[in-house]
């Protein structure tokens, strides 16, 4: 596996810290400024916590990406789980919505902190969230 792609399995809250560290290190190496490093790391924290809270286990892939169209580099974080899935994506993306009293900032927070956000979920099958940040 290349140095520009890392996989971390997420099973407990200690794995959240590991994922944050890996994300921060890659963001730094790619040349993101300190504010973007912090935003990326915080978004990873929100998404991986969602995995631990709602599904118990899943995985996160953190990798370097490149856009041929815009000729720019960036970073993608892909979180997947085989949990219960999300019934109404629109609802959970509303800031403040939460089913487990976590302030409901998990998904909406990650969306606000990043440039691109994509979520695919099927009730009963699981959820995949992809977030991206581009170098300016």
């Amino acid at each position, binding site marked *: 596996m290349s140095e520009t792609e890392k996989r971390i399995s997420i099973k407990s*809250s*200690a794995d*959240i*810290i590991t994922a*944050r560290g890996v994300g*921060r290190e890659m963001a730094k190496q790619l040349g993101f400024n*300190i*504010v973007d*490093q*912090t*935003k990326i*790391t*915080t978004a990873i*924290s*929100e998404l991986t*916590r969602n995995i631990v809270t709602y599904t118990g286990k899943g995985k996160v892939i953190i990798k370097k990406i490149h856009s041929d169209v815009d000729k720019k580099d960036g970073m993608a974080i892909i979180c997947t789980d085989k949990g219960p899935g999300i019934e109404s994506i629109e609802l959970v993306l509303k*800031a*403040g919505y939460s089913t487990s009293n*976590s*302030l409901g*900032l*998990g998904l909406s*927070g990650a969306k*606000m*902190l990043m440039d691109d956000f994509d979520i695919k979920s099927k009730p009963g099958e699981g959820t995949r969230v992809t977030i991206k940040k581009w170098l300016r």
Partner: protein
Amino acid sequence: MDIPILKIENFLVVTIQAEMSDDEILKLQKDILSRIKEVSASGLIIDITALDVVDSFMGRTLSNIANTADLLGAKTVVVGIRPAVALTLVELGIRIKWNLNTALNLEKGIDILKRRIEM
């Protein structure tokens, strides 16, 4: 990891020195609250200079500590929020009231507590 809770005059000072897991944060919350009761502290300062990430869970827990400490008679000030963390928190919690008093550093935090308690 046990985080020391120091007493200065009638205030407690807690310095978070490293990233903490959720369980460690919740244990710290419990320790702080029992210590406030034990020494009848009138103020609490939580120094988070060492934290380079404050996510919604950490933010909520800090807010919970402050609210509970208030019920026990102690005012809370969170000090040492890094500029990048502050920017992230504003974007993250744009619609959320964090309900926390903050100060730039320990000295200013103590000033705030002294003023609040005299009032």
